[in-house]
């Protein structure tokens, strides 16, 4: 190979890798862009229930029967890290979710999935995985006692707070 060929090979290879890096950065930014639902200001409610991050993680671990870590962030952002089945492998995946209110329902929405250092936006994932993102919101709604309705929720970096109104027996 002549001098120009070697030079082209090197520049091409480096540019290709640079493009991959830029693609990764773009994908991460796109996956991290804020999405609905957004949290409304908290109303004054009859009962307020606050649960810690560690308590939620333990609850999720019991429910999924596999070690699960929940990291809360302000603004209804939740990251769930757990081991899941992917074909014949069981990789650790991290799910980025938004939690919010939609009318009287608590809804959760999958925003991205991180596999190793690859963060994939939810819109690129199969519908079945996107639908599974609604599970945390549905679980909260199911666990709410029938005498109460959730009227608001808020997350901090350590805990999640539910605002409940009593609707009677």
């Amino acid at each position: 190979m002549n001098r120009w060929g070697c030079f082209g090979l090197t520049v091409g290879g480096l540019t290709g890798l640079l493009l991959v890096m830029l693609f990764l950065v773009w994908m991460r930014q796109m996956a991290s862009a804020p999405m609905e639902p957004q949290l409304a200001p908290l109303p004054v409610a009859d009962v307020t229930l606050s649960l810690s991050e560690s308590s939620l993680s333990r609850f999720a671990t019991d429910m999924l029967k596999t070690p699960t870590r929940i990291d809360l962030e302000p603004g209804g952002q939740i990251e769930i890290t757990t081991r899941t089945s992917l074909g014949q492998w069981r990789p650790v995946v991290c799910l980025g979710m938004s939690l919010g209110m939609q009318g009287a329902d608590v809804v959760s929405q999958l925003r991205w999935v991180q596999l190793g250092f690859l963060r994939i936006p939810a819109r690129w994932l199969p519908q079945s995985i996107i639908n599974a993102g609604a599970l945390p919101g549905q679980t909260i709604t199911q666990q709410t006692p029938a005498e109460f309705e959730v009227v608001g929720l808020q997350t901090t970096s350590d805990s999640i707070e539910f605002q409940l109104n009593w609707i009677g027996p």
Partner: protein
Amino acid sequence: MDNQQTSLESSLGCGLLGCAGDMILGFLGGGVLLIVLSLAVAVLSPDPALPASAGFSDLQLTVREDFLNRFVQTSAAGNVRVDILPGGQFNLIFDSSVTLSGVSVPVQITGLFEIQLNGQTVELRLLDTAISGVTLPVELTGFFDDSLSEVNEELDIALNDISTTLGVPLILVNLGSDDATFWLEASEAR
């Protein structure tokens, strides 16, 4: 001279072709490598560890005076209201009337209660009773005893329900009030 020019153009052409080809190869190869490495990292990662306790209670429950008032008004007959006081105390005020010699006289019965932690239960006890401002000795207020036992049992049931929902026993760590809310803090028994 012409041969030299042609050779240079040919070399440059090869270089540019190699550059473009390898850019595509680098992009595709990098992408495949990235997916394989990501999967390998994810598979080889240790199980996620539970976050350490942040140093405060795992569960905090706050109940407002408005709610308690609505709750007792649907549960009890007559005009009953709750007035929460600081220090885990509250007044239960019952407005009624008695007829004396054909004249209806308004009467207000006020019970001063204290709610506190007793080991791993929440206990409600009567501190003081007054009828229209006249304080009665505690010995004469036995009529609250049955209700108190019932309320204490219901408090136990409510705490057990919370514990069952969370799937773990709770350790009660704090109970308090200001002039509008009661709060209860608990940690998980691990």
